[in-house]
């Protein structure tokens, strides 16, 4: 699933420069889109509303390692601690109010058109996953938000240290789920359309087609990137193989340093667990509010009369196997897009790539 030999999309690659990216930005803005994109916020890049493309971190690079994140001067950034999830599945969201006369007022859903601008391929793939998890299962807020969503993806010419999208088949070149993609090559911007809407807009920009030499360069750069964004395992039979380790003693070892803090699940663009709180405002109403939750919390698997996962290692196993294994039976896809956030933002730097490798090794050595 890498970039090799992939046919260019309908319109083909067209070529422009930064000013054309600005024109695209302006076009979307003038068409009524609220534009959400990467922006430096203190010492991290966050997805925020962009008023102008000047806010896009062009000369910044994010240095990531397990449990480590620093912004530096540079020419390419990957991601920060938040992801499209923040908008598709807000961290806290009122669902409805029960008034004191017991009538129910549903929250009015704000009518906004959002365009994600400059998210990466892994995050684009995470939206496709969320479509399945939340969209197909009838989250009305999600559906509403998603209907108008426009996605401009930036292909990754320089994957980061913790990136492994290539192994998960989700990047670094975006394959689907986007409207327009752009790639920074040799001071130029190469555009590609991924949807009918995207084609229409790109046609409006009236950009020339890239010549054969540039196309070749494009493929080369992204193939090199794909080589870099790899973990030491393959997606093929990953789900099936990992599940063979369900009774393995290895989980205890893997979770040895784990604190159960839940940071990995908060930053993961596809983790969707939530809890519902009823918040009481005595004179007015009670609010039913949805908050992000995590399978790492002690109470998550506690039920009347017992507990499914009282041990922390069992909660670690749940997290890993859900992402890489159970997800397949549940949604017919894997739950990890290889963005590396859980590695970067784990305060003790637990590396999920290494954990998966160790489990696979255990399976190879112990299951026949």
């Amino acid at each position, binding site marked *: 699933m890498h970039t090799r030999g992939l046919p260019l999309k309908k319109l083909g690659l067209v070529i422009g420069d930064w000013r054309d990216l600005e024109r695209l930005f302006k076009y979307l803005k003038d068409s009524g889109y609220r534009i959400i994109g990467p922006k430096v916020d203190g010492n991290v890049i966050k997805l925020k509303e962009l008023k102008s493309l000047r806010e896009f971190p062009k000369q910044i690079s994010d240095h990531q390692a397990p*449990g480590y994140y620093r912004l530096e001067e540079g020419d390419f950034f990957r991601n920060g601690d938040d992801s499209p999830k923040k908008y598709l599945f807000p961290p806290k969201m009122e669902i409805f109010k029960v008034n004191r006369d017991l009538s129910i007022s549903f929250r009015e859903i704000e009518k906004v058109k959002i365009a994600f601008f400059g998210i990466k391929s892994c995050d684009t793939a995470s939206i496709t996953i969320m479509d399945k998890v939340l969209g197909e299962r009838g989250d009305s807020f999600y559906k509403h938000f998603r209907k108008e969503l426009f996605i401009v993806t930036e292909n990754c010419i320089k994957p980061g240290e913790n990136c492994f999208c290539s192994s998960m088949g989700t990047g670094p070149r975006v394959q689907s789920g986007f409207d327009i993609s752009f790639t920074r090559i040799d001071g130029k911007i190469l555009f590609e359309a991924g949807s009918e809407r995207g084609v229409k807009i790109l046609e409006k920009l009236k950009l020339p087609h890239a010549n054969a030499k540039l196309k070749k360069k494009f493929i080369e750069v992204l193939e090199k990137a794909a080589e870099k964004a790899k973990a030491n395992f393959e997606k093929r039979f990953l789900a099936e193989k990992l599940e063979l380790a369900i009774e393995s003693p290895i989980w205890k070892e893997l979770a040895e340093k784990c604190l159960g803090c839940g940071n990995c699940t908060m930053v993961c663009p596809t983790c969707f667990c939530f809890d519902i709180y009823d918040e009481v405002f005595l004179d007015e109403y009670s609010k039913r509010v949805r908050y992000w939750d995590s399978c790492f919390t002690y109470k998550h698997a506690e039920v009347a009369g017992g507990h499914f996962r009282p041990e922390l290692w069992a909660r670690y196993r749940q997290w890993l196997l859900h992402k890489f294994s159970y997800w397949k039976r549940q949604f017919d896809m894997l739950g990890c897009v290889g963005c590396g956030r859980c590695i970067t933002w784990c305060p003790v730097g637990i590396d999920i790539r290494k954990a998966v490798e160790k489990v696979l090794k255990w399976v190879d050595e112990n299951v026949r």
Partner: protein
Amino acid sequence: MNIKLAVFKFASCDGCQLQILNMEDEILQLTGKIEIAYFMEATSRKLEEPYDIALVEGSISTKWQEKHIEKIRANSKYLIAIGACATAGGIQALRNWSKNEDYSKKVYPKPEWIDTLAESKPISDYVNVDYEVRGCPVNKDQLLWILSQLIIGKEPFTPTHSLCIQCKIEGNTCIMVADGKPCLGPITMAGCGALCPKYNRGCYGCFGPMDASQAEKLAEHFINMGMSKREVTLMFKGFTSWSKPFRKVVSKYGGDED
């Protein structure tokens, strides 16, 4: 009929009670539903026992307090311990690692007048506590949350997971990862709104340990980050040092040193 609310104080600084007085706007929600039966910091008016809800601030630190808390328990339908002192022993529990007399001699001109227990301990060590509201001081929103739930007849609930989860929900950037600063958030209970990380400093654990708190593992990580045993000890030897998980770390790295 109004709910009779009493507020008691043991060994403490009054800061948690002050949070009740600080509920200037929010308190309107409570008027007409509760009646202040006992709250010396606010009024000298006193109603007869029994009470529906007793909010108890402070740790048990003297023999008299030991008796008094039993009386309060017997006379209250719900007893809610509020703040780090009442739920973990508080900052004064730092003396639990030393001899009382050593302090008394240094601090008081007539140490023989001082009559205290050997240790400062949380309310739950003495009587059954129905609910705990953590923090130094308590978060007034959380306190109001619990009271409102009780008043409306709902089982009070507050999250017992890590501060990190709240920190992320609030949209803060992790200072451990992005700044390399130590933070107790991964093992501390949520509830404060992730105030310290919001202001770019590490959580100092005033809400005490979360459910299944991995304090020892985090301490080990701090050592691996290059902190000295003394520095690690001081991180855990704060407002909730006498809570079990924190106590273990202090004993392991700090021993008897002060």
